[in-house]
């Protein structure tokens, strides 16, 4: 037991080192550099730095040193918890990430929670009424909704709920420039703004857990131990929830953990539609601007997030499945 746990730890460590190296190398291998600002989108000013300014900035950010030296410096500062300065925003990467991260976690976590809950509820209804109208309706309905690209769903929701009905704001994460007297008022404002993005992200995710739980439930329901449970004369409620559900939840837990990274990717589109702050749009911007330090930082946080989610999934699986314990 002890030996395997140590092995696990080593596993995670090796993974992190590999991720660190890739995070460091890939942005720098992309063509272009952060100080190349030549062409511009419509409506934008032409800005090209003079050779002298360019050299000044390159040496200021240490980008004129050989790559291996930069890598060592990166590892050293990382060990001190220093992720460096963002080239684009002229601010510490940790500060920028710390500002964006809560929004993303809030969005992603709420959507995960909601889509999982809804998925389970619908899956249970479907599985109990397998092959009947209710099951068919749910199956077709949920799968079709999930097939609509998130941004399209987002735009239609915006049109319906924000423009025509006027129930929700169009963009942003809280009313700009307003100061709230109470924490509650602030909370309500934030939920008001987050409502549509969360619902859209939830809807585009719900079919995943729904299908998984439905299929496993259907499989579980045909198992011998279900017959045994019925033969013992256990009440239907206990059979359904304690015996069937518990077994059907196992693959779901793993799926949620694995999905975590993908969800952040999905959040990028939603963040764009609703101009919602978060890691997703920050990362897209950093990649386009070749903001190496910021990009590294975000990728690192995401990688650690996914590893953490895996770790938690491990723990929860142990709880749910006595065979692993």
């Amino acid at each position, binding site marked *: 037991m002890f030996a395997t746990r140590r092995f696990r730890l080593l596993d995670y460590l090796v993974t992190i080192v590999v991720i660190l190296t890739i995070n460091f190398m890939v942005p720098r291998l992309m063509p272009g550099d952060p100080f190349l600002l030549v062409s511009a989108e419509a*409506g934008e000013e032409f800005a090209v730095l003079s050779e002298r300014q360019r050299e000044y900035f390159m040496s200021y950010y240490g980008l004129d040193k050989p790559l291996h030296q930069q890598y060592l410096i990166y590892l050293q500062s990382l060990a001190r918890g220093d992720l460096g300065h963002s080239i684009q925003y002229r*601010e510490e990467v940790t500060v920028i990430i710390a500002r964006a991260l809560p929004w993303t976690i809030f969005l992603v976590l709420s959507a995960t929670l909601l889509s999982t809950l809804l998925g389970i509820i619908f899956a249970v209804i479907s599985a109990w009424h397998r092959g009947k109208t209710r099951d068919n309706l749910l199956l077709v309905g949920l799968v079709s909704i999930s097939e609509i690209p998130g941004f399209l769903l987002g735009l239609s929701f915006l049109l319906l709920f924000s423009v025509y009905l006027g129930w929700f704001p169009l*963009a942003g994460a809280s009313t700009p420039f307003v*100061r709230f007297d109470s924490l509650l008022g602030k909370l309500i404002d934030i939920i008001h703004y987050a409502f549509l993005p969360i619902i859209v992200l939830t809807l585009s995710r719900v079919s995943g857990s729904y299908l998984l739980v439905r299929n496993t439930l259907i499989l579980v329901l045909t198992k011998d131990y279900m017959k045994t449970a019925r033969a013992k004369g256990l009440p239907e409620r206990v059979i359904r929830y304690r015996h069937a559900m518990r077994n059907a939840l196992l693959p779901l837990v793993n799926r949620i953990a694995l999905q975590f990274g993908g969800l952040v990717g999905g959040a990028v589109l939603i963040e764009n539609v*609703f101009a919602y*702050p978060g890691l997703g749009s920050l990362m897209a911007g950093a990649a386009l601007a070749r903001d190496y330090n910021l990009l590294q930082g975000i990728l690192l946080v995401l990688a650690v997030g996914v590893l953490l989610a895996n770790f938690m999934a491990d723990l929860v699986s142990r*709880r749910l499945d006595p065979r692993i314990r």
Partner: protein
Amino acid sequence: MLSIKKTWYRYSFLVILLIMGMLLLFSITACNGNVNTEEEARETGQEQQNTGQDELEKPVARLAGGEDWGLPNPYARNPRGPAERKVGLIFDTLVERAADGMVPWLAEDWAISDDGKTYTFYLRRDVKWHDGVEFTSDDVVFSINYQSEHPPVSTMDYSIFDRVEKVDDYTVRLYTTEPSAPFLYEMTSIYMLPEHIWGNVDDPLQFTDDDSLIGTGPFTLESYNREQGSYRFIAAADFWGPEHRVQAVEFVPVGDEILALRQGDIHIGSVPADLVEQFESDPEFSIIEPPGLWSMRLHFNLRDIPVLQQKEVRQAFAYAIDQDDLVNKVLRGAGVPGNPGMLPPDHIWHNPDVPQYEYDPEEALRLLERVGLEIAEGKLLDQNGQPVTFDLLTSGEGDYARTAELVKNYLEEIGIQINIQSGDRLTVDESWTEGNFELNINGHGGWGRDADVLRQNFAAGGSPGYNTGWANQEFDRLALEQFSMFNEDERRAIIDGMQVILADELPLLMLYYTTGYYAYRHDVYDGWVLLYDHHTIDNKVSFLVEEY
């Protein structure tokens, strides 16, 4: 007992998630709370001075924001235009650009020596920094020295400064290393920094205190939320200059600009050409059509592709490409066809009398034949009878990709085969600036700047990307001559001549200049001003009464 424990296990995952969610929600609110207290602190220092009673009756101008352009000071800002214009709301320059040309700003007047190398600036006497300290010539001397030592984010070449000295408290003398006609124009982008604050700052790139936002400009930053990209600037009460027309300028997060404009979340926004009629017929909106000073260009690599060295071949490209059609199809009419003389028709020094190349594929073929190229079976053959194809490099985004596809069609109609290569913008830019391409379609703004832009781009040793093997001694001579010509009429005549050479030689082909449209709610605010050299409306003179 056992069953309670089991229930806990069963739901532990969800419970953990729920708790984490709540914690997070609180952390967000708490976090925002902190930002606000900082803002409050910033405000209390300035509010008494800032909000007079009549100021509050003025409108608030709200524009599309949502992107973090950085803290609006000359060092912390993002390099792009929207960030610079935010800095301009807080900081001032000695000379400023307005609707009809350059105007005196922090300098009331100036004199230029006969040799064109010494500038004497006479400063305004009634100017105070936002913290109440007086603005004097010491600040000007400091600003120029400091920025020469620590280049801020700007396109200015600081090597032009030789030295700067204080004559008295309100007079400054500036020596340039060479006589430079566009120098005054360049001065419109050098912001004055308070010596009593920046004098103690060793590393300006890391200086982001509230004090880094003290300028002499018409506005102060009241609220700034980085992750949402929202900014609120309020009128500075003791502003020395023209009266404010607004009490505040706000940039708010916007998902879809059209929806936000319709809903009244913002008061002005860019509108695609297809929707202009809709807004025009709406009595709540007025339309502004900005000048076309943003160019889309076809670059030729003369250095590596011998066949492009013949100007007839480049002219054939010009005849073969239907620029009116490009404007109609790519821009839905919201643009101006490219001018072979390079300066856009909306540039104040545009010369209309240059060779033109009306769409004429027949003429293109005649030109190609004249230099010994022929078309066989729909393919262009070079002098050795080998088929010629070109790689056309461009960014895969919107207008770039559409333009490239159309250009490919026009050229293939006369038998020139094109391979389109696309990448993301920085990848394409790197290949372009390194001269690593055959043909390149590229776009950028700034074509309303001083006409010296022609020298900067096309004369020997020009900007990266432009410097791809075209050379013309007569052009270089004229380019140098206009640079030190202070007589405006004579300078204009020289620049006319430069445009004629460019139009005949076509070192690159201007495809079109985009104009676009702004729609704004005139009942909320109608003071929007376009600068004579730019196509944006979020500049400081848009918010001030015109009296300079």
